[in-house]
Structure formats: C-alpha cells, structure tokens
C-alpha cells in the first residue's frame, strides 16, 4: 500500500497483525497492515467501531505487542527492544492524548503538566517552568492553578495536550481527542494540535470518528476489519 507523500517516515508499520481471543473465539483486528507516518504531519485513522483503530494506535505507540509484524521508529524496531528500552523510548519520543482526560483531580493544571517531568527526575523549578510554558502554548496561561473540577472539557483536554507535549515528543498519539468536546472546543483543540505539529515538527497519529478533523489532516487512513481500505492525503497538505 502506498503511503501519503513519499518522504522518509518517522514511524512505520509492516505486516502488522493482531487478534483477540483464542481458538474458535479468536477475532483478528489487524490484518498485515503496512503504514507510514511522516514527520510533522497529522495522520487520521478513521473507521467504524471495531475496525481496529485503537489496537493499531496501541501497537504503534508501544503499548500493545502485536501478534505479528514490525513497527519501526527511525532505525529501531519497537517490539524488538527490551521492555526497559521501549519504556525509555516511550518516555523520550512518544506522547499520548486519550479520550478521557485522565487528569489527577487533586493537581492543578501546572502540577498535572509538571508531574511526568518530576517523576522523570527533573527538579521542581525547571519542571514548573517548562509546564508553565507548555500551558501558555495551549492558551491556558491564566488557568495554571485551577484543578480539573474548575476547568471546562476543552480546557481539560488542552491540559492533557500540554502534558503530552511538554517533553517535545517526536510522535503524539491521540485517541478520539475531540469526541468529548462540543464543536467550539473540538475545533479549538484541532487547530491547536495542527499548530503545535507545525511549530515543533511533531508527528500526530490520531484515531477519530470526528469528521471535523478531516480538513486539518495531512493524511487519512480508513480502516475496515483491520485492513486499510483507503488512504488519501487530507485537505491540509
């Protein structure tokens, strides 16, 4: 299958297969997928429920070992790495935005964003400074000290994006990043992701049902029963 533009990929998958269950109940969700994701581009993975989108995202993001096939990040074969090295790779190069915001209710916005840096050993002052910067980038510089209960859905998702991007990852994996948001906030989050991708050269792989994201995508992959049935360049390219 031909990838979108023909430039060296940040992330690629070859012969990716995965199934859930055993024996008679075994249900394949990915069938020998081959995909490429290009630097600084946003790729949407679309498809009906059960088409294998989330499993694909987990396999690409180093969260779920596929039954067969290879995922390459640069020269590294993700699933050939020792668990500790894969963990390091996830820490340094990958970031994730999930459907639920998954923010700690006790922490303020700045603490949420600084937390992964602190847990990675960064000193408090430096972590807070970087967190402040990341929150400013997502337009939350006036909400630094608010807790999730005091933020709107869109603001929570922007905190989650700031938390993901504070480490300047190479690849951002997003699972339905706008599904819990109203149209105004959804649009804002989409534009933000697009802008950050361009500014930092981050590759975005986003699983979505949301057609509002289509005009912003560089590349769209349509999955059906674990097979990429259509792949095309998005309107943004």
């Amino acid at each position, binding site marked *: 299958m031909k990838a979108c533009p023909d430039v060296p990929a940040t992330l690629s998958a070859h012969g990716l297969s995965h199934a859930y269950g055993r024996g008679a109940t075994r249900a394949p969700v990915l069938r020998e997928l081959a995909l490429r994701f290009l630097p600084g581009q946003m790729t949407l993975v679309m498809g009906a429920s059960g088409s294998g989108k989330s499993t694909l995202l987990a396999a690409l993001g180093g969260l779920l070992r596929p039954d067969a096939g290879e995922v390459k990040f640069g020269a590294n074969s993700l699933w050939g790495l020792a668990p500790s090295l894969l963990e390091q790779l996830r820490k340094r190069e990958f*970031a*994730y935005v999930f459907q639920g915001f998954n923010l700690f209710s006790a922490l303020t916005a700045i603490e949420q964003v600084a937390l*992964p840096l602190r847990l990675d050993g960064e000193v408090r002052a430096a972590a807070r400074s970087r967190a402040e910067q990341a929150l400013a980038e997502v337009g939350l510089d006036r909400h630094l000290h608010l807790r999730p209960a005091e933020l709107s859905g869109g603001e929570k998702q922007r905190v989650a994006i700031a938390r993901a991007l504070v480490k300047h990852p190479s690849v951002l994996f997003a699972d339905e990043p706008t599904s819990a948001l109203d149209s105004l906030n959804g649009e804002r989050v989409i534009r933000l992701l697009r802008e950050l991708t361009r500014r930092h050269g981050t590759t975005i792989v986003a699983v979505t049902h949301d057609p509002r994201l289509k005009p912003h995508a560089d590349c769209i992959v349509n999955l059906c029963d674990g097979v990429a049935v259509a792949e095309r360049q998005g309107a943004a390219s």
Partner: protein
Amino acid sequence: MLTDLPWVSGSLARATLVHDWRRFLPAILSVAFAGVLMLVQLGLLTGMFGTVTVLVDSIPAQLWVTAPATRSVDETADIPVSLAALIRSDPDILASDVLSLRDASWRSADGQRVAVTLVALSAEAGAPVCPEPMRTQCPMLASPGSVAVDRSEADKLGAVPGASAEIDGHRVRVVALSDGMRSIGTTYVFTSRQTLDDLQAGDAQAADHTSFVLGRIAAGSDAGRVRDDLRKLLPRTTARVWTRAQLSRDSRHFWLRESGVGAGFLFSTTLGLLIAIVITSQCLRGVILGQLREYAVLRAMGIPTRRLALVVVEQAAWIGAVGTVVMWYVVIAVAALAQRCYVPFTLSRGGLLVAGGIGLATAIGSGLLALRGLYRVEPAELLR
C-alpha cells in the same frame, strides 16, 4: 530539599492526601487507633505495675536486701534486722535502715473493714527509707499511733486528716495524705517503725525481723559494684542483695509474666495493628483503583511502575505520620485524664517514639500491600 530529589514524587502524594482527605481519614484514624490502643494499654500496664514497685521507685536507697527467695518486691519474707548493721560495715554504705511490711486489718470510723499493708518507715525526712513524695509526711509519723494513706485510697479507707481508725484493734490517727504512693493489689498504710512495734506488742520475733534492709551509698558510687561486694558479705541462703533498678525491673517483669496480662497486651496490640493494616491498605488500594486511568497515562508516558509505587509509599508514610501525631495527642489527653482521676498511667517518651515508629511502619507496610493494584495498571486499556 527532600522534594527535589529525583525519585520523590511529593506533589502528587501530598496533593492527593490534602485534596481527598476524606478518603484517607479512615486510614489515618486506624493508624492512630492502633497506636492509642497500644499506648493506652502499655500506659495502664506500666502504670499498674509501676504501683507494684512504687516503694522501690520512690525510696531513695540504692541497695535493697530481701529474703533469698524473693522474686518480686511484693513477695516479702522476714530477714533479721541485724543485717542493717552488717551492711553498714561496708565502707561504701553511708547509711542503712529497715523497711517493714505487715498485713493488717483497717477499720474505719464507720465500721468498714479493709485489708491493708502497713509500711513502717523511719519518721525522718532524710532517712534512707522515706519515699521522695512523702518528705513532708514522714516527720508527721513520729508521733505514736500516727498513720498516712494515699489520697487515691482515702475514700476507700474513710480517711481524712485528723480522723481516727483502728488497725488490728488499736486506735490510730490519720495525720496526712500522700500523693503517688498507690499500689495495685494492696492498700498501703504508712506508719513509723515505733508505731508498728506498738501495734505488734508482744510479738518478740516480729521486732527482730523486717521485710527489707536498705542501704544508701555515696553519690557517684557504682551500685552494681557495691551490690556485688555485699553479696560476698551476706550468705546467699540468708538474704539477697539487689540494686534498686534491678529489683524494680525484675518485679515488673515478674508481674508481666505471672499475671498473663503481657500476653493479653501483645494479642490486643497485634489485633489493633492488623486492623490498621487492613483498613489502611484497603483505603490506599481504593485510591489507587480510583486513579487507575491517571496512573495508566503516566505508565504510557514511560514512567516506570516503581516510580509510581513511590507515590503510594509516600502517601502511606504521610498517613502514618499524621496518624502518629493524632495518636500522640489522644494518648497525652488520656494520660492527663488518668492523672486527674488518680488512675495509674505511665507514659514515656520512648514509648511514644516506639509507637510512632510502629504506626509509620504499619502504614508503609499497608502501602506496600496496596501496590498490587498499581501493578494492574495497563496503559493499552486506555485505548479500549
């Protein structure tokens, strides 16, 4: 600063504790409760057993001579009064004296009978046998027929200063009330050696015998060495020599063993700690399960489980620390209440520290037990 160490994840642990304090309250209270249970029992036991040795602990003489078979200070048997002169032959003994305990029957003015133990002291403030808390009362016992009782026993004996009573049919007069001289198991009535002799008039053998011979040594002298010297002087079959500390300690241990309350104390303390461990670990486990998705995001971001485990262990340590402080306040309040009600209760700084350490260890151990929940965190679950 501790919180700036790379492995410390203080903000999350502390922020969660402060923000969700209601969720952690049962754990904090269970740690505090276990500690209070332990310290109050310990305080009552040591207070109670402390009353067994109240005479040893309050009388300033450093050396005690008892009957050879004595295991505890309340197990008295007669020894010759002449031993007092014998031990004085040791150059390290500055003064010697005798202390006699005799069972007697008290009859108050209203006819109430109470079994008591007469404690015959030297009626001089500076005598080796005058207990420290009775320095002002000892000289008041010089007058024949005078007795003193502890304030905490006064109601039981119907004794007020100036009141009359009978001991073994002889009239006596209460001249003073003492404080802090209460004993478990018996009721002490303090009197002078002379009054005791009068009460035992006709018993020639009693006059030549006593329960204890006491020796006072110079300040700075080694009581253990003098005891060893006296042991050489006194045949093992005649008497046994103790240092004050040794007699006090051995008497308490004897009571702890013989009464069986030591085992009871251990059982209820262990039970209290187990309850605290179960409540604290379940509480922490509930908090972990409630934050499973948030932890899963951190795991997805490559934060190792052991670093997340530190958050839980730190939360557990804070629970232990706060629980310990609550425990200390409650126990100090209980001790004050006990003192106000004349209930023997001993609270030591060492006991408070040990209980605090046990509380902290209990909470941290509970945190480690709760970690099982954390190892169930599976980042891929976030994508289902």
